[in-house]
């Protein structure tokens, strides 16, 4: 769907068509369209290589519990994975340029914490600034942008190792997250702040709609926008990208910033979903493992330059199903982490088997 070239083709034919007459398309053009469509089908098939796995999970889920396939449960999964999904988009972008960012989980907790802290009254452990909730949202993105900028500058300009920089950053951010509210949780969030994570359009969670839109737009951006293509070039061979006149450093820093802002948005969704910002959100829950796992299961290479949004989305959905099935199966809380981790490792192996060569690490 994201790689669908037909809209272009249609607009071309529409443009050349005389008004009021039946569309006359040259046989050559038809053949060209067919060729392109079949090309697309082949590549689409490759992208959704994990589809059989998802189908198996659907079957397993419905066997485990009759609740699994109900609309409300699926909607619930949608809401649950939205926040993760947005962060996975951010991490995938960073992985595509050949970087990595562990601090997205820190931003995911800190950005909504700072915003909420500025919004809620002192009595509810706020700062007392009692900021307008909409200004609070600006602050949220500003925190994301600032963290991304610092990471980007340290890694790109300072040429420090991205792993250790963002690991350090995660801990700093988590410390700030707890520090500013003295390890309290912030409740009583204004409705504007919680809307994104908690509201529904009919049966469909708003957060899911927004997340799907972000996946689609990012996918289109990566495929059709010159900066999106530059991201692949930078990740695939930075020296060649530089020699071709691409501003490699600017692209990289921009992507670190975009990734962190997406993480902040994911944090906002999570805060809305649970109606609170806790000190645990992000780093405390260790969401970064799920983020990396979803991206890698979806075929985004840790070496940069390879991967796409369809794959990343499949990875997120797969994790969402697994999580939900474990919940429905009433797995004991004591064991849930071990099983969760084990299942993710299993999914990685499965994705490697199903996905073929492109999911393999180099020898």
């Amino acid at each position: 769907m994201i790689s669908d070239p037909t809209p272009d083709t249609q607009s071309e034919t529409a443009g050349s068509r005389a008004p009021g007459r039946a569309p006359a398309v040259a046989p050559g053009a038809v053949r060209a369209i067919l060729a392109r469509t079949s090309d697309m089908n082949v590549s689409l098939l490759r992208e959704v290589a994990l589809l059989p796995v998802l189908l198996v999970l659907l079957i397993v889920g419905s066997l485990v519990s009759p609740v699994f396939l109900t609309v409300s449960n699926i909607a619930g999964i949608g809401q649950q994975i939205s926040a993760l999904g947005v962060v996975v988009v951010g991490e995938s972008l960073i992985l595509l340029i050949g970087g990595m960012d562990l601090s997205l989980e820190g931003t995911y907790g800190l950005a909504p914490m700072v915003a909420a802290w500025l919004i809620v009254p002192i009595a509810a452990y706020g700062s007392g600034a009692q900021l307008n909730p909409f200004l609070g949202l600006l602050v949220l993105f500003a925190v994301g942008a600032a963290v991304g900028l610092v990471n980007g500058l340290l890694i790109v300009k300072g040429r420090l190792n991205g792993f250790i920089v963002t690991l350090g950053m995660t801990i700093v951010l988590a410390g700030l997250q707890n520090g500013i509210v003295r390890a309290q949780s912030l409740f009583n969030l204004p409705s504007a702040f919680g809307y994104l994570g908690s509201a529904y359009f009919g049966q469909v969670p708003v957060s899911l709609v927004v997340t799907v839109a972000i996946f689609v737009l990012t996918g289109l951006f990566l495929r059709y926008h010159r900066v999106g293509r530059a991201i692949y070039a930078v990740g695939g061979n930075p020296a060649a990208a530089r020699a071709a006149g691409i501003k490699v450093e600017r692209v990289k820093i921009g992507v670190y910033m975009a990734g962190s802002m997406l993480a902040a948005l994911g944090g906002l969704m999570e805060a809305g979903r649970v109606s609170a910002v806790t000190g645990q959100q992000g780093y405390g829950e260790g969401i970064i493992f799920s983020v990396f796992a979803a991206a890698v299961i979806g075929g985004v290479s840790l070496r940069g330059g390879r991967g796409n949004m369809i794959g990343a989305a499949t990875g997120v959905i797969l994790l969402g199903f697994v999580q939900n099935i474990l919940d429905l199966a009433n797995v004991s809380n004591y064991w849930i982490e071990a099983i969760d981790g084990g299942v993710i490792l299993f999914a990685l192996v499965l994705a490697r088997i199903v996905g073929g060569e492109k999911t393999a690490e180099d020898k």
Partner: protein
Amino acid sequence: MTSTGPALVEMTGIEKRFGSTRALRGVDLSISAGQCLGLVGRNGAGKSTLVSILSGLLEPDAGAVRFEGAPSPRVGDVSRWREWIATVFQHSMVVPDQSVAENIFLGSTDSLVHWREMRARTRDIMRAWGFDIPAEALCRDLTIEQLQIVEIARALARGARCVLLDEPTAALEREAIRRLFERVRQLADSGVAVLYISHHLEEVFEICQNVAVLRDGELVMTASVAGLRKDDLVAAMVGGAAVSEASAAQVSQARGPAASEPGAALLSVRNLTSRSPSGRLSDVSLQVSAGEVVGVTGLLSAGVATIGRTIAGAEGHDSGEIRLRGRIVEQGRRDAAQRAGVGYVPQDRRAEGFVPLLGVAENVTMTITDRLAGRLGLMRPASRAAAAAPVTRALSLVSSGPGQPVGELSGGNQQKVTVARTLVHEPDLIVAITPTRGIDVASKALLLDSLARVAHDKGAGVLLCTDELSDLVICDRVVVLVRGEVFTEFSSPPFDRDELIVATEGMADAGNGTAEEAAR
């Protein structure tokens, strides 16, 4: 083929397919002990496939490899293969952070590491063959020539009786090549069989006794070098159809003295000084006019690559200035130089020339995304393919389509992508560093011709930085660098090869007698 002695290595009926392409079609080839056999062929003729099969890395679809009549070890059993045949690849295969001794005994089957013995045996091999590299040296500190010696020594340490040299001179300077030839002769004299793969036919004539020609996966000729004419060899490589391609360069060589009047200086470099690791520059000044092809030659370490990289914005400099049309170009910024109109064909295509996972069209149009993109910055893949098509066609680039990842192409076609990427943005000045390295005769002529055309038809300036003297045929002037300084300038083509050699060696008397000696 008539050769003395038993065949040490014998390939019979080797077939290999990759999808729909038949890379090798029933190749029979044998190499005898003490013989140096040259293997030549255009890019994509199947040389690399043959090398992989001979090295035991790739399983042929049909046919067999025999060593002294015995069947070859299992494919992939590298250590057993190495006892027979060892390959020195085009791209160094040593571990940079390990010592020479460790690299020579890399993959040894002993489970314990006997450091002292390893070093002693390394020293023995080095001494026996007259090499002089300390066993303890770290490979990252060695020159390319020394790394090659390490790889040859590795082959000898295993007792390999056949050594396969894949484009061994590609990254070497003239003196190093001469020493390599001595070593190859020494190897052959001691009974080692050598398979020598090269694009440089003169090298084949110099050190090989026999030569085999691959074309489109078939062995079309095996002949003794003695009495063979170079033209016949080229004809065998190129086949009937493509001979016109090969002579393309000569066509544009027969131009009038620069159709466009050499106008005001397009590029003016003044007092450029750099302490670059790729070769120092001190106080270099030069000019390129519109429509002019200027060569910069010398040893690569003499700053030939550095001046190209600096002008292209790929690296900064310490002092001096670079002006394009009178305006200073921001230093060390490739993107700024490109916006100012400087195209860049980098020295190392693998490192800087292309993004292997991306398609041909996308790589070629990477320099013009700003022009292809609409108002929102959006581009259609079809418009990229359309923009790339004329340039790739002009360079006879062979690919399965605009979407084929460049990493899958042969080396020569990859180089064409790199050149196409530069031509497509129609720069005012093209800086090309060793653009013909590692590509076959016909492609070489085509690439040089495309550069000459840009200058003569479109009035762009071309700065050709190369140590490959035969590339200089397209130049109007040649500047010779020695140890980072402008040593001399030749301003009237055709340039005398011997004089150029003498000048690059920094010998002031580019005269009669010394030329002969220097050329040796």
